[in-house]
């Protein structure tokens, strides 16, 4: 069931000043890491990773543009179109997993953390943000029973620095069977490089401009792969050699642009 259906916003939860979670009823079977195309009728359609995957699904929206601003302002009862779930999911296996999230990346990792904790996998999560007031899903991760480590770029809470810096430190301290990461691409590239050096399997979730979500329009082309169907979750070893990783993305006209 990936074709467009109309859902109504059940509720919205403010996660921080610029980020809200929108919850809606949808019975499709989604796995952690998958995404949906969210249609705001009359405005736009954008890809969003699930932050909740049960029947009461959720997407977590960082207010960065016109479409996300409209989602930010959504209220109970508003109609949205969704199609999906699309894409590949996280592999959640082993005895211990390190999750590394930066900014809104925590949204995509939370369902994976839930599945991991539910399967008795020892889980540590690094949640990073620019500043303390922008941290999201910290309470949710704590209530799941995960070992939660926090980083802020400005040092306003716990570790001062990027999530990737804290992640490298955590990797030194403990032993992990896998690493899953979602956040700014350069941060993820640092994590992937470190994991591959240590021989730890690592998966990353990428974000690109998308149109079809179905692997045909080529808008999310990434070194011959497509983020919508070959990803959004990729094995680090499969993409570390791709020139675009952490550096380039495609704009709406298909030209290559530097990731800011």
């Amino acid at each position: 069931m990936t074709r467009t259906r109309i859902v109504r916003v059940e509720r919205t939860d403010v996660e921080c000043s610029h980020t809200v979670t929108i919850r809606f009823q949808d019975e499709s079977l989604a796995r952690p890491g998958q995404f949906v195309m969210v249609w705001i009728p009359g405005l736009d359609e954008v890809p969003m990773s699930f932050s909740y995957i049960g029947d009461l699904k959720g997407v977590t929206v960082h207010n960065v543009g016109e479409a996300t601003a409209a989602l930010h302002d959504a209220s109970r009862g508003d109609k949205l179109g969704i199609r999906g779930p699309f894409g590949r999911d996280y592999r959640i296996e082993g005895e211990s997993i390190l999750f590394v999230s930066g900014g809104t990346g925590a949204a995509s990792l939370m369902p994976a953390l839930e599945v991991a904790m539910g399967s008795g996998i020892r889980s540590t999560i690094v949640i990073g943000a620019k500043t303390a007031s922008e941290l999201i899903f910290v309470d949710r991760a704590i209530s799941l029973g995960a070992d939660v480590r926090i980083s802020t770029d400005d040092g306003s809470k716990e570790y001062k620095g990027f999530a990737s810096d804290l992640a490298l430190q955590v990797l030194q301290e403990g032993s992990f069977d896998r690493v899953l990461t979602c956040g700014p691409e350069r941060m993820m590239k640092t994590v992937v490089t470190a994991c591959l050096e240590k021989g730890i399997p690592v998966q990353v979730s990428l974000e690109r401009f998308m149109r079809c979500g179905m692997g045909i329009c080529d808008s999310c082309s990434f070194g011959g792969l497509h983020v919508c169907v070959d990803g959004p979750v990729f094995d680090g070893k499969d993409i570390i050699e791709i020139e675009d990783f952490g550096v380039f993305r495609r704009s709406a006209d298909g030209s290559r642009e530097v990731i800011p």
Partner: protein
Amino acid sequence: MADLSVEIAGLRLRNPVMLASGILGETGSSLVRVAEAGAGAVVTKSIGAEPREGYPNPTVVELEAGIINAVGLANPGIAAYVDELKVAAQAEVPVIGSVFGKSEGEMSEIASLMEEAGVSAIELNLSCPHARNVGAELGKDPETVGSVVSAVKKSVHVPVFAKITPNVTDVVDAALAVANSRGDGIVAINTVKAMAICPETGRPFLSNGIGGLSGPAIKPIGVRCVYELYENVDIPIVGVGGILTGKDALEYLMAGAKAVQIGSAAYYRGIEVFGRVVEEIGQFLDEYGYESVGDVVGIAHDEN
């Protein structure tokens, strides 16, 4: 083992299954991947004179038996696309450059830049059903089709194909114009003009309202068009529209197409569809005792 290679307008292809324009052809690396997946040739996304963002999303909606899209000819413009063609040159199959434009002059210029960048042939987009002043807006008028084909023929040495629209009363008119203007072949069909409306919101699904329907729903329309074209024009025909399997491709070949193109099936069966359809054609030819692809071309027209 049947011979799967074909020759169209002087182009030698290892098999008759090409990538259709508009699908997976915005980047050189995707063209290479489609070639690796088994295609006999790849056609680029339609490229224009300037960068173009296309329509806002939603640009694609999936229906029961097809997909409607109105991407709006998004492309980086020929100057930037030359870099993608350099990457595409690594593909071990011919790369065909699809061109759209507002006038014969603009299209000739883009075609000649494409030729310089190494494409093996040009495909003129005279059939995009959802963009203003280009595509089908030119292609619906046989006289304009003729003058565009003549002009582009004069500006390049590689073969020139014209992709024509099914959204006219008689597809033969434009095809005759292509043939009379010394065009090297016809690609038929482009998507069928269509719309889907979301009842709950009372709005068309696509931001542009109208789009082009592709996928299984249009295969019988495409097969009929190719059948009619084969009876009326002598230049080679490339069949496209709703091909998912080897048998679908054989319908087009038997209607008279020398080769076929695949687009939406890359969604239905994944990017591996190119190699799979080639295999399926080969198995069919072996099973039914045909020695080559050429043996089935146009046989649906035979008496008895």
